[in-house]
C-alpha cells in the first residue's frame, strides 16, 4: 500500500518560486503523469518526492508515513533518471543489483531478482556488458530494470523516454505500461509529451508555472479542461477560443452567431478542432492553410479575425481562400471565465 499525499508543497530557489503550494494525492498503484511545458516545476516536484530536494514548505507522505525529513533511501522509492544514470563502471548485472547489494540481500536473491527483471526488460543477454557498450534504448531498459528489481512501493520516472528516437519511444511506451501495470507499484511519471501522458496515465496532473492546474483522468482532462491553459496545452492542434458577448435574449454572440451558454456576465467560447463539422449554418471560417493528414484534414482558418483550426473528414475537398461554415457539436462547447481563466461549469 503506497498512497502518496503531497500537502502544500512549495519550493523556492532564492527569489524564484519553482513550486507554489501544491496539493496532490496519488492513489495506491495508480499511474500518475505530471504533464507540463519545460520549466513548469515537474522535475522539482518529483525530486522533492524522491528526497533529492527539500521542500521550502509542505509535507510529503508515502504509505501513511511522513517522509519529507527522511533521506531518499528510507522512502521505499526507486527512480528512473532522465539521462538513465546507469553507472559506467559497473556491468549491467551490477547496475541492476546495485540497490539490492546496498540493502544487503543474500546473493541468491540478488541473482534471482536481477535475472527476473532483466528478462522482463529483455536485456538478459546484456548482463555482462558495461553501459559504454549499450545503445540509448538498452541503457533505458537497464535503468528501468534497476528500479523494478528493488520491488519498490513507488517508482518515479523523469522523462524516461525523452532521449529515445520516435520509433523506440513508441515501443518502450507500450512496454512500460505493461510492465508497470503488472508490477502493481504506484508510479509517478514526468513528461512534457501529451501523447505519452494520454496513453500511459490513469490520471494526469497538468502543471503550469509551478501550479497543478488540473488532476484528472486523461479523457476528462481532454474533454473538460478545468482551465483555459489545459485546453490550450493539451490536444494537437489545441482548443480554439473565441470571444463571446451576452445578447439581450440571454444567448451568447460568438463570431456573429448565437449559442446557448452559461448564466454569467462574461465568458469565452471554446471548441476542440475535431468537434465541428461543415454545415449550412455555423461559424464562418475563411480558410488559410489546408493540410491533409490522411484520415483527416487539418484546416487553419480565420473566424472573426481570430486564428481557428478544424480537423475535418478528408472526403470533401477544401481549398485556401474558400469560406466554409462550421457547426460546433453543441455538447462539446466549453466556456471559460475571461477573468480567472477557469472553466465555467
Amino acid at each position, binding site marked *: 500500500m503506497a498512497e502518496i499525499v503531497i500537502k502544500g508543497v512549495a519550493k523556492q530557489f532564492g527569489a524564484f518560486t519553482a513550486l507554489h503550494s501544491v496539493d496532490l494525492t496519488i492513489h495506491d498503484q495508480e499511474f500518475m503523469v505530471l504533464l507540463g511545458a519545460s520549466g513548469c516545476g515537474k522535475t522539482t516536484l518529483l525530486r522533492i518526492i524522491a528526497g533529492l530536494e527539500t521542500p521550502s514548505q509542505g509535507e510529503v507522505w508515502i504509505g501513511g508515513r511522513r517522509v519529507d525529513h527522511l533521506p531518499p*533511501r528510507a522512502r521505499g*522509492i*526507486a527512480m528512473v533518471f532522465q539521462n538513465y*544514470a546507469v553507472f*559506467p563502471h559497473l556491468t549491467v548485472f551490477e547496475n541492476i543489483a*546495485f540497490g539490492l547489494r546496498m540493502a544487503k540481500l543474500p546473493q541468491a536473491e540478488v541473482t534471482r531478482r536481477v535475472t527476473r527483471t532483466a528478462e522482463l526488460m529483455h536485456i538478459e543477454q546484456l548482463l555482462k*556488458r*558495461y553501459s559504454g557498450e549499450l545503445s540509448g534504448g538498452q541503457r533505458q531498459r537497464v535503468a528501468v530494470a*534497476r528500479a523494478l528489481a528493488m520491488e519498490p512501493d513507488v517508482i518515479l520516472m523523469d522523462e524516461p523516454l525523452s532521449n529515445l528516437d520516435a520509433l523506440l519511444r513508441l515501443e518502450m511506451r507500450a512496454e512500460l505500461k505493461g510492465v508497470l501495470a503488472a508490477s502493481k507499484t504506484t508510479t509517478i511519471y514526468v513528461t512534457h509529451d501529451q501523447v505519452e501522458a494520454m496513453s500511459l496515465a490513469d490520471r494526469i496532473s497538468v502543471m503550469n508555472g509551478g501550479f497543478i492546474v488540473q488532476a484528472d483522468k486523461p479523457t476528462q482532462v481532454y474533454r473538460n479542461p478545468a482551465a483555459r491553459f489545459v485546453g490550450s496545452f493539451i490536444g494537437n492542434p489545441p482548443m480554439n477560443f473565441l470571444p463571446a458577448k451576452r445578447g439581450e435574449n440571454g444567448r451568447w454572440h460568438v463570431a456573429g452567431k448565437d449559442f446557448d451558454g452559461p448564466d454569467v456576465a462574461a465568458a469565452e467560447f471554446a471548441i476542440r478542432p475535431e468537434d465541428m463539422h461543415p454545415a449550412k449554418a455555423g461559424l464562418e471560417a475563411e480558410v488559410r492553410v489546408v493540410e491533409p493528414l490522411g484520415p483527416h484534414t487539418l484546416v487553419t482558418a480565420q473566424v472573426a479575425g481570430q486564428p481557428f483550426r478544424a480537423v475535418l473528414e478528408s472526403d470533401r475537398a477544401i481549398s485556401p481562400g474558400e469560406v466554409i461554415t462550421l457547426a460546433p457539436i453543441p455538447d462539446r462547447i466549453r466556456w471559460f471565465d475571461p477573468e480567472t481563466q477557469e472553466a465555467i461549469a
Partner: protein
Amino acid sequence: MARALPYLLLLPASLFLLVFFFYPFGLVVVESMTRGGEWTTENFTRMTGHWKFSTAFWNTIWLTAIVVPVQLIMALTMASLVQKLKTGRSGLLYIFAIPLGISDLAAGLVWLAIFEQSGFLNSILHAFGIIDRPQLFLGYQSLWVIFLAVVLAEIWRATAIMMVIIVAGMGLIPKEYNEAAEVFGASRWQRFTKVTLPLLRPSLQTALILRILMAFEVFAVVVALGGTTLPVLMGETFQWQFQLQDRGVAAAYAMVILGLSVAFSLVVLRLLHVPKGARI
C-alpha cells in the same frame, strides 16, 4: 595531405624532444653502463657497494610511502569539501594552490625557518614557557625529526597539485550518478567508495603518477632541512656528479630513480585500470 597535417605540425615539437631529451637521456644510459669507454657494471656495483646507497634508497621509498598516501587522503577530503561549496569555490582553490607557486627549495627554506634553532617553533614554545632554551630540532642525533619535517614540508608543498587534479576529475562526474546511488540506498560513504572513487580512476591515475614521480625525485626540501644528514637518491646523484665527480655512478643513480618511477607508474596504471566501455 590533410591527414599528414597534424603530424607535420607536431614534427618540430617531436624533433625538439628527440634532440634535447632522448639524446641526452641516451647518453646518461650509456654513461651508467660504461667506464673509460668500456662496457661494465662497475658503476652499479660501486653505487650499491657504498654504505649510503641502501639508506638513500629506503629513505626515498619511506618518504614516498608516507607522503603520497597522506596526500591522497587529504586531497580527496579537501576536493570533496570544495566540491560541495556553492560560493567561494575558486577563491579557496587559489588559496590551496599557493604552495604550488613556490619552488621546492623555497618550500624547504620556509620549513627551515620554522624548525631551525632560532625559528618560529622555538620562539613559540619558548614564549609559552614549554622549553627554557632553544632546541636543536634538525640535528643529526634526531633523524626522525628531520624526516618528519621533510614529510610536513612535502605535504604542505605538493598536496594542492593532487587536489586540483581531483577537483577537476570530480567536476567531470555527472551528479546524477551520485543521486542514483543515493536513491538506491547508498550512504554518503558508500556513494564515495562505490561511485565517486571508481569514476575518479582516470584522475587518480594522473594525480598519483605525477606525485609519485615527484616523490622519487625529492631533493631540495631534504637538502634545505637536513643537508646530507638524511640521504635520498636524488641527493646522492647530485653528490656523485658534482662532489665526487663520478658521472658513471651518478648516471647509475639516475637509472635507479628511473626504474622506480617506471615500475610504480605501471603498478598505478594496472591497479586503477578502467576497462574499455566502462568510462564515463
